């Protein structure tokens, strides 16, 4: 896939950075302190309130990294067909 659209490349890069930030939030914050729209968020009195969603963080981190690599490749010189 080779889009070369600056808008799409920018959005993918932005998404990649956002996912990496989300990964750190998952690693640092317990489940009850996560924003309520994050998968894995639980109420303060729930049994898993102090659980850290390490795996969610790893998943977000690697997808974010993949998005950044994709965006990086898209900024390279266009090869002749």
């Amino acid at each position: 896939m080779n889009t070369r659209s600056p808008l799409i490349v920018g959005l993918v890069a932005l998404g990649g950075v956002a996912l990496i930030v989300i990964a750190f939030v998952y690693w640092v914050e317990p489940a009850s302190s996560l924003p309520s729209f994050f998968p894995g968020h639980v109420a303060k009195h729930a049994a898993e309130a102090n659980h850290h969603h390490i795996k969610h963080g790893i998943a977000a981190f690697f997808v974010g990294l993949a998005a950044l690599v994709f965006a990086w490749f898209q900024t390279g010189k266009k090869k002749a067909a």
Partner: protein
Amino acid sequence: MIVGSLISYAQAIALGLLQGVSELFPISSLGHSVILPRLLGWDIHQNDPYFLSFLVATHLATAIVLLLFFWRDWVRIIKGMGRSLRDRGIAPDDNDAKLGWLLVVGTIPAGLLGLLLEHPLRRVFASPESAAIFLMLNGFLLYGAELLRRRAPETDTDDDARLAKQVGFPHAFGIGAAQALALIPGFSRSGATMGGGLLAGLSNRDAARFAFLLATPIIGAAAILKLPELFGPHGAGIRGQALVASLCSAVTAYIAVRVLLRFFETNRLTPFALYCGIAGAICAAVIPFL
């Protein structure tokens, strides 16, 4: 809890030897580690935390063996990926870079699905009865992959050049996603990748080589992620057994890679399909009466 008698050293040796072989042969290591204890009347259960910690050690040993076995290939692949990052693109003749990114694309869906589905699937399908049935289905899957394989002409003599040219990124993604089947005890991860490779037009040997390369990061990452559990409370009383099992697993994994790469030069998945079908059917019939 009598910690010292959770897994005996004899059981650890048997499970370690079995793990090394069954992880790389397309016959489901997880399925065998669920079925064998029931067949032999061992009081070991797949979902017990200490058993999962024990399995982590044997998986890590298998991943280390794979990494060392393909060490030169990995060095070339990583150098190729570095070149492509530097040049911001994969050069048409850079097979190492293409193979490296194919492995990354194949690893991402397997890793994500593994992270998300491992616990729910193991909870639901961890019984020896279901593992036996899925082992039988794994046999059909392997046989089906052999029947439906696409035979692409082999134009290159270099192994990695063939892989890089015959496997596309969508194929790599599909093969990676198919590995998630192996989260169900009875289905084989290497079987899914080898079958996917055949459907993508690879020869049996190339499909096996791609499966082994794809296995290394996934098995290694899963093992490293869970390694702290082995050194935590769940590892108490089984660390010695885990070490012995890991050594046994490493030996059989090494033999398995050598044997399989040579075996697939001239042979097919059919014997493994037959084994899984017959063994699964027999176990499914026998286990309810044990």
